[in-house]
């Protein structure tokens, strides 16, 4: 039963959603299914929190290397959860002044807002900004013209890196519109770095990405059918009947 019911729900929901694309009568059913899905998605946050707890507690109890970080994670998790749920420092909503907890948990000046503004935001930005340092180190150590493919990649990288900045104007901005060889249409300005970047993006990247997307779409359609028909049951977990 533990497997049959989820399989049945998946199949019915999936086929209803497919039907909404072709039969207007099914649109309301599809919308109801999506509303249920969105509710379940909200519960996923609870599951996520539970999973975080379980994993970190396991690390702490087994005294695994780095268990101190797990302790920090849990302390931060509980403090944030508390100030968010208890709405510490939040004033009641002007529309519902009689309800003490009716204010917005992210209200400016509240403790949760302070955490977000002065801890989460700078930490997130710092983590993302670190990429620049690692990319520069990788560029120096790993980006080598070892073979023809790597060399082509390297040349394209240099063109795009320069073409996406004002350097293209400095280096190639003076290229004229005069034809190079006779009247064949190719001009010096065709070799401006920003123009070359545009050609790379439009004539190479876009068709390549389009081909990949078509492939992915066919794969998704085939996998979805397998799931809806119950052929692929891997999303239910282990094959062993619980």
């Amino acid at each position, binding site marked *: 039963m533990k497997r049959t019911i989820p399989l049945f729900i998946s199949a019915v929901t999936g086929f209803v959603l497919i039907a909404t694309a072709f039969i207007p009568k099914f*649109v309301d059913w599809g919308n109801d299914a999506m*509303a249920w899905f969105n509710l379940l998605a909200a519960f*996923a946050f609870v599951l996520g929190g539970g999973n975080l707890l379980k994993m970190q507690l396991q690390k702490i109890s087994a005294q695994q290397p780095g268990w101190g970080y797990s302790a920090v994670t849990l302390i931060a998790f509980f403090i944030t959860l508390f100030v968010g749920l208890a709405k510490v420092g939040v004033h009641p909503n002007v529309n519902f002044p009689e309800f003490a907890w009716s204010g*917005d948990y992210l209200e400016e000046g509240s403790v949760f807002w302070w955490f977000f503004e002065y801890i989460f935001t*700078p930490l*997130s930005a710092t983590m993302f900004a670190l990429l620049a*340092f690692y990319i520069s180190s990788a560029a120096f150590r790993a980006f080598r013209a070892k073979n023809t493919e790597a060399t082509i990649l390297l040349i394209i990288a240099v063109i795009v*890196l320069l073409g996406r900045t004002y350097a293209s104007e400095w280096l190639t901005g003076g290229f004229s519109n005069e034809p190079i060889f006779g009247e064949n249409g190719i001009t010096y300005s065709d070799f401006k770095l920003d123009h070359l970047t*545009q050609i790379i993006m439009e004539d190479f990247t876009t068709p390549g990405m389009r081909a990949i997307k078509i492939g992915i779409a066919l794969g998704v359609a085939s996998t979805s059918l397998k799931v809806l028909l119950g052929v692929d049951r891997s999303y239910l977990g282990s094959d062993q009947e619980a």
Partner: protein
Amino acid sequence: MLKILQNLDRRWIFLLMFVAVAVPLIMGTTFPETPSGEVIAVFDAVDNLPDGSNIVMALDYDPASAGELQPMASAFTRHCALKKHNIYFMTLWPQGIPMIQSSIDILNEEYPKTYKGKYGTKYVNLGFRAGNEGVIKLVVEDLKKSYSADIHGTNLDNIPLTKNLKNIQQVDLLCNVSAGYPGSQEWVLYGSSPFDIPTVVGCTGVQAPIMLPYIPDQLTGMLAAIKGAAEYEQAIINHYPQLAENPKAKEGLIRMGPQLVAHVLLIGLIALGNVIYFWERKQGTA
């Protein structure tokens, strides 16, 4: 010399990158930008609408990507404000709510005549809903099944802007600023494309190649990375010169300075790395 470079501590490279980014930022160096066709398409999509049109602004990003995307969101907001458009803010990212607040602050502080004290009649904040593309599928067909109330808990039937809004097929333009999943691609796949909703997006440089195949049929235009933001700011300044006096309206343009120096440094490092590689190969140690 090459031997020293061969064993160069990576912390020197980190220091070089730090200087490359910090110096132009501190000096506030900017360079003129020429808006590309894609950016002009975005500008026209917002600008050609009659004043007071309805725009959905979906801001799907978090503080980690704000450095790249906030200038776009701010530029979209300023452009819409200059056109006195009605704005519906929403996000599919839980961390997106403060990002929306930044845009609302722009409306209230820089365009008080049009927007201050006009919540519900000129703009509304729908906030966050969980469900990713599930939310998109609902808002394009039946908004109130997903959003029964705004971020303050006010029923959408009691808000003038949303009272008669059945779904976002009724709006004039969808602007999405996105840092990944769920974001621009999902809005195109489940929102704009099946229902022909005019859509423009701003996305990170990593997402740009993924979004390119949708232009121009499913997507009117795209701002790609900080370069796209800078070009869009320039396009707005070209048409509304009063913004040239506002330094906050040039965030993207200011960030192109560090980008230029950092890119040149990267090319220099790649070149140096290859010189060492070929020298090692000649020595037979590579």
